């Protein structure tokens, strides 16, 4: 186990270094004019030269990379060319809003997706199975950004029951401002007992949250259907039934426990994927999160911000992959031997 762990962690580290090099090179070849952005287009030649040195652009590429990574490890992720704020501080400002959204969305996907998959497996081949399979396939095939707009049309424009965009209503923000502790609106308003703000925050998160949940929900339903079908075909399930154990108990205690591991694995990776889906969802709902910040950075070619966000997301992705692999190796000795 120790040998496996060492190898796996070393590999993850290697991949992280490689990823950071790729991102760095990508950002450096972006045909933009960082100096011009930094000092303005009317700056004189000597001002530009000073800015070039200030931004470290006069040094060779590998020195620039090493000094970037040195700063990165010590919490200095560069300064955004657009907001003129440290990138790490920008990310810390925008990330909590995204986490609110992702946690709400993933919880919805888990709570609805797994039962849907189980139902589909138990009623295998019936009309219920077909309906839930079509439903989960549809969840995967729906363009996230379009679903977001359809929800706005139906629930805001037609039914007038949910807000169009934003995190809380203007009125709430003025009358019952949320006292920020963690940056998560839901958590902070709950902890401080600000129920008016909690209600407003909840009504604002429903549409973007469900939009974000659609694709993971479909995937989780498909996964849990497949693993449940496999487990339900096992001999020990037949034996359990033969013993007269109630069907519910067979399903939940015997089958689900063995079927759930791969579903949760996929869940961890979907969590990382949804960091990217927020780019699309937040753009439609003007949700001030990481995706909103990142797509702005991409459109304005703000390379320190692009690098910061890209490295953050890919490191999260690698880290979650690592956790998943280690957990699986822990549960299944065959993996660590091979």
């Amino acid at each position, binding site marked *: 186990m120790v040998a496996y762990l060492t190898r796996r962690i070393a*590999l993850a580290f*290697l*991949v*992280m270094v*490689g*990823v950071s090099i*790729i*991102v760095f090179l*990508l*950002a450096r*070849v*972006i*045909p933009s004019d960082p100096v011009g952005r930094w000092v303005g287009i009317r700056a004189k030649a000597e001002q530009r030269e000073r800015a070039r040195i200030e931004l470290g652009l006069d040094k060779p590429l590998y020195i620039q990379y090493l000094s970037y990574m040195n700063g990165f490890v010590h919490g200095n992720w560069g300064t955004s060319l657009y907001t003129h704020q440290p990138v790490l501080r920008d990310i810390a400002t925008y990330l909590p809003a995204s986490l609110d959204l992702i946690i709400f969305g993933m919880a919805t996907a888990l709570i609805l997706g797994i039962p849907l998959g189980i139902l589909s497996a138990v009623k295998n081949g019936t009309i219920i199975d*077909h309906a839930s*399979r*079509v439903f989960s*396939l*549809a969840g*995967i*095939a*729906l*363009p*996230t*950004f*379009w*679903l977001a*707009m*359809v929800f*706005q*049309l139906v629930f*805001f*424009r037609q039914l007038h029951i949910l807000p169009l965009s934003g995190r809380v209503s203007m009125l709430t923000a003025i009358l019952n401002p949320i006292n920020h502790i963690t940056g998560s609106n839901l958590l902070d308003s709950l902890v401080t007992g600000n129920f008016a703000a909690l209600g407003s925050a909840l009504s604002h998160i429903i549409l973007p949250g469900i939009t974000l949940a659609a694709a993971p929900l479909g995937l989780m339903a498909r996964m849990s259907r497949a693993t449940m079908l496999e487990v339900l075909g096992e001999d020990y399930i037949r034996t359990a039934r033969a013993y007269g154990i109630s069907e519910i108990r067979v399903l939940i205690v015997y089958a689900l426990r063995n079927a759930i591991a791969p579903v949760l694995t996929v869940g961890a990776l979907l969590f*990382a*994927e949804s*960091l*990217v889906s927020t*780019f*699309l969802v937040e*753009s*439609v709902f003007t949700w001030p999160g990481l995706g909103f910040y990142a*797509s702005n950075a*991409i*459109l304005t*070619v703000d390379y320190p911000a*692009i690098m910061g966000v*890209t490295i953050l*997301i*890919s490191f999260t*992705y*690698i880290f979650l*992959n690592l956790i998943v692999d280690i957990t699986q190796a822990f549960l299944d000795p065959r993996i660590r031997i091979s």
Partner: protein
Amino acid sequence: MVLHEIRHALRLIRRNPLTLTGLSIVLLLILVAILAPWLAPYPTDVNTSHIASKFQPPSTIHLCGTDELGRDIFSRLLFGCRISLTVGLFTIGLSLLIGLPLGVIAGYSGGWIDEVIMRISDMVLSFPSLLLAMAITAMLGPNLQNAMIAIAVSWWPWYTRLLRSEAISVREKDYIAAARAIGASWGRVIFKHVLRNSLTPIIIQVSVDFGAIIMTSAALSFLGLGAQPPRPEWGLMINTGRDFFLNSWWLVTFPGLAIFITVLSFNLVGDGAREILDPRLSRRGR
């Protein structure tokens, strides 16, 4: 023998209503893409605007209404079908072109070459594909061609991995040793034996990926990083409709439906291909 297999596959397709539906829609879409200039009621509306007739709701004259420049949305959707299928085809082709040779080389040569290729593909796969594609299009400049390149660059490792494992399993087979013994060149062994044996998993993977690639390219266009106006690309049509859709729902609804139906039917075909072509799965299903 081949005829027998095709007949068997057709029987399996017929028995699976979802696959059959998906396949019919895919065939229809291909037909639409080819015949778009003749099917479209207003074929010139792809590029020309008629400000006088903007924001017309759906009617018998304009099936899906008109957009903010008075262009017939239905006609533009038909031409958009061309774009989406071409993008899918080219992107998959490019990914295969990069991924397959690397996979064969990695699996066949082993050693440090294998190690280097696989670590690079691990690195590429450590980015969520949309994120990498976004970063690359931002670098190359936003247009449809660069979006296709960007998606292919983030996609090839899937094919490399697939072909590598096939190549490794084939490498150890006796008939390869026999082919080598009678003097077959490496090139011949690779193309005749390795590639031919890997055809089934590649077909399955490609049919599963097609929908995802169309979706990714639409997302890039929606973010302003793919197709540029006035191209009738579906993601772009949704993006330009954003400013007006609360009062003119048809601007975004129909292009979105087009993406949804296309991706869904390709996914259905992909699922079906997996069940039919993968004998392990189809046996379990019975």
